[in-house]
């Protein structure tokens, strides 16, 4: 069933002729997000410019029983914003107004379509920091970040998107508009409903406005780079740093394959025989930062680092960060298809998990480069493959399942920051168990009885 002309005309009357796309050349570019090998063209793409319009579109979708997939810039990595056949793509990029920067309460109110980088830049102009920094922040929207509960490189010290959301405006599946939360740091008036919507991947409502918490910018930062001949030495270094009561703002890791790809790509003189590389940063009061940087350097040496460099200037810090910054680019160039995963384990199990991924790669004859956030246990095993090679893709599937199973066995999770979407639906029951899944289903049925909001994502009803 295609979307009826009548419904399309109503959509046009809500948002204007130019804000409804139906032609193949207009719609095909919305058939995917940032996830590899998942594609589904939409029935139409609609660009609302105000909450009122979103509410009217949802009411129309209800009346006509048309599924709606909400989307920002389409950078998701689990297929969460991939369209549903013959459905509406509700694209919020034109709702990008900044509404209120409150310097007394350190909050920022924006519409959902504001680009994350603009949030960060705006905070910076007031000497403030919006800490979540997902890899796609230059173009991802804040609404998408909230819907996916995006992470980033600073998770260990600063937390993730959820930790910075104080309030949300949401259009519910019945078209009603609700405000959830407040500017109060302490607010226990009833259930924390905003928290249910954070990470709900567009299945429970459409987030239209976000009230964000900002923090003061740290006054100083120091950067260190260490290489290790043994994986365990790197893992032990991380454990020892945490045990020494230091919480670095960055603790990033590259494995051997990634180090080799980065060196091939960027020629920065990394040791090709190293098993692991750690990029470490500490920020805060200058005196504390100075002390912590020296102790981290010492701890890395004591735990058998092959080399440790402490940046002496901002330029040198940027140079040291190059290896980590170019990791994904370097891997993505190697093969036609790049599948970026985000299996996550408790920090204490990191070394085992990384070794297991390497072993799985060898056993299945696959190239898997692993990098990620050592501080919070969030790893990115990256499959370098070719989606046209069906036999290899089957091996990728098998390897992925083994990696997820092992992560769960270690007390970890199948996704640290990308979400379930379509890509990981099959693994969800095993990861969270029937009881938890059942609770989610009950919530979905109660709040979206006709299954119109992003149907088929996270789980099937």
């Amino acid at each position, binding site marked *: 069933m295609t979307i009826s002309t009548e419904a399309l005309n109503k959509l046009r009357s809500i948002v204007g002729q130019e804000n409804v796309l139906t032609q193949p050349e207009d719609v095909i570019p919305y058939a*995917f*997000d940032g996830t590899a090998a998942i594609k589904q063209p939409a029935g139409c793409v609609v660009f609302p410019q105000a909450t009122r319009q979103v509410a009217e579109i949802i009411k129309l979708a209800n009346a006509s029983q048309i599924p709606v997939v909400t989307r920002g810039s389409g950078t998701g990595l689990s297929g969460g914003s991939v369209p549903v056949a013959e459905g509406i793509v509700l694209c919020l990029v034109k709702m990008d107004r900044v509404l209120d920067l409150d310097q007394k309460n350190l909050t920022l109110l924006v519409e959902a379509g504001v680009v994350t980088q603009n949030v960060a830049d705006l905070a910076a102009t007031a000497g403030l920091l919006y800490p979540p920094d997902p890899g*796609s922040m230059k*173009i991802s929207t804040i609404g998408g970040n909230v819907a996916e509960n995006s992470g980033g490189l600073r998770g260990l010290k600063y937390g993730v998107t959820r930790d910075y959301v104080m309030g949300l405006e949401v259009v519910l599946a019945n078209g009603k508009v609700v405000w959830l939360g407040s500017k109060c740091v302490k607010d226990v008036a009833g259930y924390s409903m905003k928290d249910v919507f954070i990470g709900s991947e567009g299945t429970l409502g459409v987030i239209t406005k976000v009230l964000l918490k900002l923090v003061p910018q740290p006054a100083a930062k120091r950067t260190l780079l260490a290489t290790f001949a043994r994986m365990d030495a790197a893992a032990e270094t991380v454990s020892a740093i945490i045990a020494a009561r230091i919480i670095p703002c960055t603790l990033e890791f590259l494995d051997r394959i990634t180090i080799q790809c980065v060196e091939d790509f960027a020629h920065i003189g990394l040791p090709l025989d190293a098993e692991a590389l750690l990029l470490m940063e500490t920020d805060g009061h200058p005196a504390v930062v100075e002390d912590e940087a020296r102790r981290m350097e010492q701890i890395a040496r004591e735990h058998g680092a092959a080399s440790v460099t402490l940046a002496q200037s901002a330029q040198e810090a940027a140079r040291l960060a190059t290896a980590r910054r170019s990791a994904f680019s370097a891997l993505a*160039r190697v093969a*036609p298809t790049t599948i970026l995963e985000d299996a996550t384990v408790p920090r204490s199990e990191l070394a085992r998990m990384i070794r297991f991924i390497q072993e799985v790669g060898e056993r299945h004859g696959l190239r898997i480069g692993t990098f990620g956030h050592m501080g919070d246990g969030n790893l990115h095993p990256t499959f370098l493959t070719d989606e*046209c090679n069906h036999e290899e893709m089957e091996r990728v599937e098998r390897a992925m399942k083994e990696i997820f199973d092992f992560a769960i066995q270690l007390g970890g999770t199948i996704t640290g920051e990308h979400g379930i979407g379509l890509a990981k639906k099959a693994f969800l029951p095993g990861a969270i168990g029937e009881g938890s899944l059942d609770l989610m289903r009950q919530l979905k049925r109660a709040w979206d009885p006709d299954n119109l909001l992003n149907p088929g994502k996270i789980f099937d009803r």
Partner: protein
Amino acid sequence: MSATPGHLARLDYAVLQQCMHCGMCLPTCPTYDATKLERHGPRGRISLMRALADGELQLTKAFGEEMYYCLGCLACMSACPAGVNYAEMFEAARADIEAAGLLDNPKRNFVRWFTVKFIFTRPRLLRLLGRCLYLYQALGLQTLFRKLRLTVLLPQSLRELEPLTPTVRRHFSDALIREVETPAQRRYRVGLLTGCVQDLIYSEINRDTADVLLAHDCEVYTPRLQHCCGSLHAHNGELELARRMARENIIAIEKSAGSLEALDAIITNAGGCGSHLKHYDHLLHDDPAFAGRAAAWSRKLKDVHEWLAEIGLRPPPMAVAPQRVTYHESCHLCHGQKISHAPREVLRAIGGLELVELPESNWCCGSAGIYNITQPEMAGKLLARKLRHLEGTQAPIVASANPGCSVQLEAGLRQARRPVRVVHPVSLLAEAFRRAHPKSARPPAASTRQPSPSA
């Protein structure tokens, strides 16, 4: 209207597949930024090309229009984490569009025939046209034409373009530069490419480039008659003509220098041309007579700033009058050739100049080859954005290393009545050398002897 896409279909599928649609290109794409529509962004355009190659979409007029709405600025290639070769896909798509005649109409056909196929494949005729335009301007006819407001007689599209008309120089490159010029001490032998449009409207930049090369101990070989580099043809779907231009230029340099092997480098000073010239190897890889020569050509092809950095830039001995200068990056110099640092180093080497950074310096000015002619509306928006940033720097000089950008900036500044000088970085360098040695038109090391027999 529909047809089968030949060039796109023949591309290695891995080239199309390399795009992982992560979206990192979007914030750098001027047409996406202005419209917020995926089809006007790189990954959207790639998805359309892939849909064509997969047979999910027919070659349609809308597709054709989209591919010509793209500036071809290649900013997406700088942003792409996966190293997608957008330039190649984009040229193939445009070639398919032209082969299928998707956008044919009598006016477009005539303009394309006259420019892409006729004038820009015949350098002598182009110079003749240049002479006529020079006389028209030098005799005051252009001023008269404008004063009498006769421009109203032109059709609207031409009327809008008329103010863009650049000033044709009295002398073209062949009158300013001898075929071989030899420095007092010779460390290198280089060929110098003088371009087609640049030869007519910025021939002094070519002279300045030769002077700067001489001051760096390079013997300079400049064929007197050179063809268009072919980028105009390749970017407008005429790959066969682009190959013809490439062969002509290889032959011209070979004749002038004896062989390509005799040269240490072949120098271009125009960002847009250089980006295309460096890919002659790829363009001619199927041509048995030229594949090897084109490979040698591509190895030796250097942008002038890149070459100066490679052989060691010599700062001029004397400072110039203190002035502020800003730098606008040609898209195909910074995105196409990844040369961003070297031109700034040239400017920093000139004592007295203070280089202030231009916000969004690597954002397209809207010139984009002939885009300002084919898409005046979007080009106008981009120019206005560029002029706003230029005003913010308060610099009386803006340096830029591509004739298309210079024409666009000069026209914009003229219309806004802003007395800002647009100049090539190498011209500023040449001026600084001349200031140090005012009696000679050339830097000290340079004389203009006849070629040595070994050449």
